[in-house]
């Protein structure tokens, strides 16, 4: 009997420097994607609620296309399609190029979900709020800025938190876009040491250290900022 596969945590300890740098890569890509997807998502939401029909249709097309395509396909398209076939390279250095391609793929995908949450948030603002704002003589911009948007943003904090947690977990899929992060390291360690339980537990705990605090933070923020109705 060789109990090492169930109990031996030493591969994790031996590779602690690699482990830290791999999770740092995960954090780096998560933060970049988080910011970019919020920006793109907000733009798409603005298009989807605008009074201009063409923009609404384009926004809806974007959201429906990306929401229903598997992330694996989106990222594979970025690495094999954009970079290798269409010669669309962001940087000459492969590692930087693949980082930004992965960020691009993840961001456009996550942005669709961000846009969907934001739009749902705008829909939760009761019609009466806008009508009351108009009745007391606020102009369109004023009512948007002072009445509707503050309520809309507050009500989407929790759903946005869900999207961000899912995004952090999804960064593992950038493996297919040749960017080296925690999941890639786990795969390599499985090849080197065999697929042992402690290695898996170690990586699972590593990801929980990223997702759980994110969840608690957004929950706390959502409660703090909740609109009393």
């Amino acid at each position: 009997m060789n109990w090492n596969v169930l109990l031996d945590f030493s591969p994790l300890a031996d590779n602690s420097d690699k482990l830290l740098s791999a999770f740092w890569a995960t954090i780096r890509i998560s933060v970049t994607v988080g910011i970019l997807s919020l920006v793109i998502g907000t733009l798409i939401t603005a298009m989807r609620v605008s009074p201009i029909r063409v923009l609404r249709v384009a926004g809806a097309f974007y959201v429906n296309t990306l929401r229903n395509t598997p992330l694996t396909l989106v990222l594979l398209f970025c690495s094999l399609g954009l970079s290798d076939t269409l010669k669309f390279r962001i940087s000459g250095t492969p590692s930087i190029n693949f980082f930004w391609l992965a960020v691009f793929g993840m961001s456009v995908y996550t942005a669709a979900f961000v846009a969907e949450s934001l739009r749902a948030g705008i829909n939760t603002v009761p019609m009466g709020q806008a009508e009351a704002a108009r009745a007391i003589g606020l102009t369109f911009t004023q009512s948007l800025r002072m009445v509707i948007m503050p309520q809309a943003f507050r009500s989407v904090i929790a759903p946005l938190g869900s999207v961000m947690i899912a995004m952090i977990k999804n960064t593992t899929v950038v493996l297919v876009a040749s960017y080296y992060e925690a999941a890639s390291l786990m795969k390599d360690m499985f090849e080197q040491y065999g697929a042992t339980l402690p290695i898996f537990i170690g990586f699972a705990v590593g990801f929980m250290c990223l997702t759980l605090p994110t969840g608690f933070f957004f929950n706390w923020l959502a409660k703090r900022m909740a609109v009393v109705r």
Partner: protein
Amino acid sequence: MSEAVSTVTETEPAPTRARKRQSSVLFDAPGPKARMRHNILTLISAIVILAIIYVVIARLDKEGQLQGRLWKPFIKGSTWSDYIFPGIGGTLKAALAGAVLALLFGVVFGLGRMSDHRWVRIPAGAVVEFFRAIPLLILIFFVFSGPPTIANALNREFPQVTAFTALVISLMLYNGSVLAEIFRAGINAVPRGQSEAAYAIGLRKSGVMRLILIPQATTAMMPAIVSQLVVLLKDSALGWIISYEDLLNTGYRQIPTQYGNLIPAAIVIALIYIAMNLALSYLATWLEKRSRRSRKTSAKVLATTPGAGMSGGIMPAP
């Protein structure tokens, strides 16, 4: 949880024509000046969008991706019968098996988590929270290569885990845990008075659950369940990484290897995935409308959460 399941309000019935025009809470019905401005903006945005489409097509053309030679395989019957249909079959097989098992897993652990016995409730909760918090991909890796290694080290014979088994088991564990939370939320969404009334007329715990809570909760959580199944279908594409023969693999690895048409293949495969998912999503919307009309439940319908379309981003329980 309650914030995450906010209902998307429908636009209210419009009493006048002016109200009908208004498509959002954000802007007034446009007057003549605003309509003029909108027309100009429409023109500008149409030009911008056309310009983007032009740039994309020009780029594709420059790299020779629009040649008929590359698209031809997709109008040949053999491509469909040899690659695409088997691929769709593989995807649907994994998704279906995963869905059935995930529903079972969800029912068992969702109910387990609501048990009155602490020794059932706590382990069930731990399992659900664990599988919800970790990325599906590392779970797939472990289920794929873990059991043989472990069995080997313990001097036991263990047959190799196939890619299909690994994918289905991972999909079950992960989506089952998310579904368990949906079930729990659904049962909790039934007003307390319902179960109190049921106890008052003398039903036992199992009777209250079976006759009162589950039927009402099912109606309320149907849309959320279906949208989780869309996630499951999409996640089955992760099988690519362990070389499972699904639509992504046959369509995006095998076809391009043979014909060298990566871009056309990506577009066709994406369209098929979108069609499959939209069909399921429409089912979810239809169920949601239907259950909102229904008077058979007193529970508030768990709307499809905006984040739910993404692989299971439900918040950890506060």
